[in-house]
């Protein structure tokens, strides 16, 4: 048997291992028991070969799975990036619109007057210590101004022009009018065109020369004036039957002075005017006529007696 296996000149076992000789052929060359042993041996060898084969292909495949995972993470990251970019754009646009719709504001200090041209060519003359706010965006379709203090408006024809004060709302089409609002004093004088004055309860239509005012808790009162524009435009503050405290307020605004009126009765009614350019003249024209003495003290406060 052994001789038989070794003396075979063609080294059939090598050829069988190689696959050039089939199992069936081998069976004819060796005994059945030998065949089974060889076959088992070959299986074991094949398996050993497989187990010992390089792990490089496995590593490559593991690596590609890992890279896929990393890529998934990365795309999630870039998705987040995209989100934050979108958010930034939103914020930028938001800021743009917010600033665009933000109020434009003009303010006058003590003893200061300003004339402001609005986007449509209308004019606002701001008296001393007054503020207006308005939105430049959409001005043509939404002419709306918030006012604190006193202003004279020359409104060009166009869409509804609204002046809002805490005391009431003045709506006009094209006209000249004066709106004054200080503390509890609210006065509208119409010089040209038609003006509608609305507060919480009532609406009043003012024709040229008509005025309306509301002082403190009193009812609104209407009166007429023949002037073509408010006197302050010409450097004069005029009052018709106004409590003295509002006149004093106006003096303080026009001259940036402090007046101590604690010793006098401020509710006296005053009719008249004072110059906005000459303090001495102004004080004389108000207080001399009212029989009130005025002394400037060390701190520069004007005391009334």
């Amino acid at each position, binding site marked *: 048997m052994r001789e038989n296996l070794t003396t075979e000149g063609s080294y059939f076992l090598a050829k069988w291992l190689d696959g050039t000789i089939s199992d069936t052929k081998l069976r004819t060359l060796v005994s059945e028991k030998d065949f089974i*042993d060889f076959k088992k041996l070959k*299986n074991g060898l094949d398996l050993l070969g497989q187990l010992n084969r390089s792990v490089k292909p496995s590593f490559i495949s593991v690596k590609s799975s890992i890279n896929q995972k990393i890529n998934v993470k990365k795309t999630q990251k870039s998705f987040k990036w995209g989100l934050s970019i979108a958010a930034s754009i939103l914020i930028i646009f938001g800021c743009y619109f917010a600033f665009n719709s933000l109020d434009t504001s003009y303010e006058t200090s003590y003893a200061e007057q300003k004339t402001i041209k609005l986007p449509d060519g209308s004019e606002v003359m701001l008296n001393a210590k007054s503020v207006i706010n308005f939105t430049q965006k959409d001005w043509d379709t939404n002419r709306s101004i918030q006012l604190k203090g006193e202003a004279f408006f020359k409104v060009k024809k166009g869409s509804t022009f609204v002046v809002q004060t805490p005391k009431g709302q003045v709506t006009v089409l094209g006209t000249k009018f004066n709106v004054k609002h200080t503390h509890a004093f609210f006065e509208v004088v119409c010089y040209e065109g038609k003006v509608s004055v609305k507060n919480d309860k009532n609406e009043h239509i003012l024709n040229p020369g008509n005025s309306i005012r509301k002082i403190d808790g009193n009812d609104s009162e209407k009166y007429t004036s023949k002037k073509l524009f408010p006197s302050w435009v010409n450097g004069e503050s005029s009052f018709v039957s106004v409590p003295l405290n509002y006149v004093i307020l106006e003096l303080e605004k026009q001259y940036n002075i402090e007046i101590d009126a604690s010793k006098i009765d401020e509710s006296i009614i005053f009719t008249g005017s004072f110059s906005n350019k000459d303090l001495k003249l102004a004080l004389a024209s108000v207080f001399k006529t009212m029989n009130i003495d005025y002394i400037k003290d060390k701190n520069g406060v004007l005391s009334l007696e």
Partner: protein
Amino acid sequence: MIKNLNNICNQKVFEKLFNTHAKDLRRFLFFKTQDMNLAEDILQDTFIKLWDHCNNVNPAKAKSFLFTVAKNMFFNYKKHEKVVMNHQKRAPKSSNYETPEYLLVEKEFLVKIEEAISTLPEKQKEVFLLSRMENKKYKEIAEIVGISVKAVEKRMHLALLKMKDKIGDV
């Protein structure tokens, strides 16, 4: 990325761990599964899991992590296989154990083969390993070793004979 040479998240460290343990793990998995393809799948999944936990596993403990994970994955697979088979009402493969092709390869038998190879004469061993482990053709081996193809065949033939004698009745 992470430069720390002691962190598995470092790709170099990870690759080194793979090269050190992959073969042992594959062998381990094969004897559990008796299925080369399944062993390969679990091997890859195990290393992917190692990568997922690369920040939490100490490189010194990587080996035990790998073998534990591989074992658990194998058990999970078996559980799943059982469920699938119950569901399909299908009996496990009925192998014909009478023909040698289906003989189960035991771990001990492989060890015996390895021992037998190591006792081969140097010249036969060289040729035999090139052929069986490196998958080289006889012609290539002839070129590498610098002998004729006939001489290669002779060495292979004799090597196999010797191994059968050595292992004896299996």
